[in-house]
């Protein structure tokens, strides 16, 4: 039999757990509802397909989302190969945990906890000034790559580790070289998980503001090349709501587009996760 105090604390715990679930869901719905209420009016095809006019008070966000996608592309094109390689290294391609692997792991932990403004200043100093890229999409994309790498590497490493050792042993016993094992066995098996890591990284990059202000800049023109400055969606929202009187409606509409993009990415991730669990099923 449960004592009275035990029953009370059990009921209390149940209440707290349910309450926190309600609060978290409520917060999300509140934000979404607020965005829809204030932003839906400004959203239209014209909004998506026209360039911003009058500091973004009028016109649309075409140049903004083009810049955003370009920054993201640079970021991913850099982060994915580096991330997969580093993850493969960490996931035991060395027989013993080497000093270099430990150093890498520590560095990643520190990097993951670094505030994004620090990445922004670092990117500004390294890519914009030292490498002479100035305020450009390239500079912003590379800075974002530094930022998403820790998350990406961790997820991909976990994914490599999750590949059962019987496949590693089997592959080795068949005379597969390390590269062969990585490209022919581990990567295909880890691909769904890598997609998830990528989506998490993209999510972080898409929402990033602080790291981009100092690197990709905030020129709202259509970029002509990767060396042009480009304004990302998040910076556009920040600028409209903070610096541009009368920009609120377009700020809300832009925020709605950004949240929509993130939700789509989350949906794709969820699908990849689902595939992962059915794909690994054993007959």
């Amino acid at each position, binding site marked *: 039999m449960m004592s009275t105090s035990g029953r009370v604390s059990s009921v209390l715990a149940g209440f707290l757990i349910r309450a926190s679930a309600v609060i978290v869901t409520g917060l999300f719905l509140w934000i979404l509802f607020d965005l829809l209420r204030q932003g839906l009016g400004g959203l239209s095809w014209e909004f998506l397909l026209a360039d911003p006019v009058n500091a973004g008070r009028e016109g649309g966000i075409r140049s903004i989302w083009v810049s955003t996608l370009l920054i993201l592309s640079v970021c991913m094109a850099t982060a994915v190969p580096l991330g997969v390689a580093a993850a493969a290294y960490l996931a035991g391609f060395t027989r013993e945990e080497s000093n270099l692997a430990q150093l890498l792991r520590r560095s990643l932990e520190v990097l993951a906890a670094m505030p994004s403004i620090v990445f922004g200043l670092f990117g500004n100093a390294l890519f914009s000034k030292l490498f002479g890229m100035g305020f450009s999409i390239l500079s912003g994309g590379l800075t974002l790559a530094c930022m998403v790498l820790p998350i990406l590497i961790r997820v991909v490493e976990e994914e490599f580790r999750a590949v059962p050792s019987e496949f590693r*042993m089997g592959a080795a*016993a068949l*005379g597969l*070289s390390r590269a*062969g094992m990585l490209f022919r066995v581990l990567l295909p098996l880890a691909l769904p998980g890598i997609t998830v890591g990528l989506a998490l990284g993209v999510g972080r990059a898409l929402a990033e503001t602080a790291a981009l202000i100092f690197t990709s800049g905030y020129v709202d023109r259509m970029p002509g090349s990767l060396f042009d400055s480009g304004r990302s969606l998040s910076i556009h929202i920040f600028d409209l709501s903070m610096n541009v009187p009368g920009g609120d409606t377009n700020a809300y509409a832009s925020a709605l587009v950004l949240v929509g993009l993130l939700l789509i990415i989350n949906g794709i991730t969820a699908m990849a996760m689902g595939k992962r669990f059915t794909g690994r099923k054993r007959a």
Partner: protein
Amino acid sequence: MITDSHPSHRNGGPYPEDFLETPCHAVASAGHPSDTPSALCSTNLSLWYGDKPAFQAVSAMVGKGRITALVGPSGCGKSSYLMCFNRLTDLISGCRVTGHIRVGSDDVLDNSTDVVSLRRRVGMIFQKPNPFPFSIRRNFEIPLKENGISERMDIEEITEASLRSVGLWNEVKDRLGASALNLSGGQQQRLCIARALSLKPEVLLLDEPCSALDPIAGGVVEDMISGLKERYTVVIVTHNLAQARRIADEVMVFWMREGCGSLIEQGETAQIFEAPRDAITAAYVNGVRG
């Protein structure tokens, strides 16, 4: 000494002089038929996991084209011993091996040994069937392409021949594109053997290949393994003494001594079962111990 009467060693053989001074030689002259050349040989081989010894000082020869069964209770180092021959022990962290191993005339434990080509010559089958979770076709493509065979025609031909040699071709020829995981356990194990054979190895190491299968599937796999004799040198770890007696030419008995595994007797199958020299072997094969 019997040493001098051993024809394969009298003229120097494939092994250097000091190699012949080792217990490996003594074992060979004690129980090994002198007319079969050895395919594998271990000399004073010991293995540790961290500080814990798995087996100590095992010296033995495995005859070419014969089936050698490793028997003995669990935990006395049989599987670990097997993994030394293709250096799969490299993949286990904290694992340390000392002594000498020869495959043909190659010194396996030497640092300069190319383990990738060694593993192509010395195939291995595991207790739990481990086809890659891809299509049946891809299970052959991966190792063959790694091995430098990239022509589609060649790959198809080798795949078919390998699957035929394990009696699986007719069962799977219409669904080579289907996942290998949809096959039954016995079929998966035969697929793994076919996959190993596709690389044309000289030696096949089998680590309890039938123990994860039901008796009927295990029987099919066992018959298949008997059929490999003469074309391949086969070393098989088994807990099933009856199986060892049915398929093996030679038997090596492992036992725990002072907390770690050791080889207590090696000999022809008939001799081990009918006239064992060691008292523990006698008790073990008669079902008194183990």
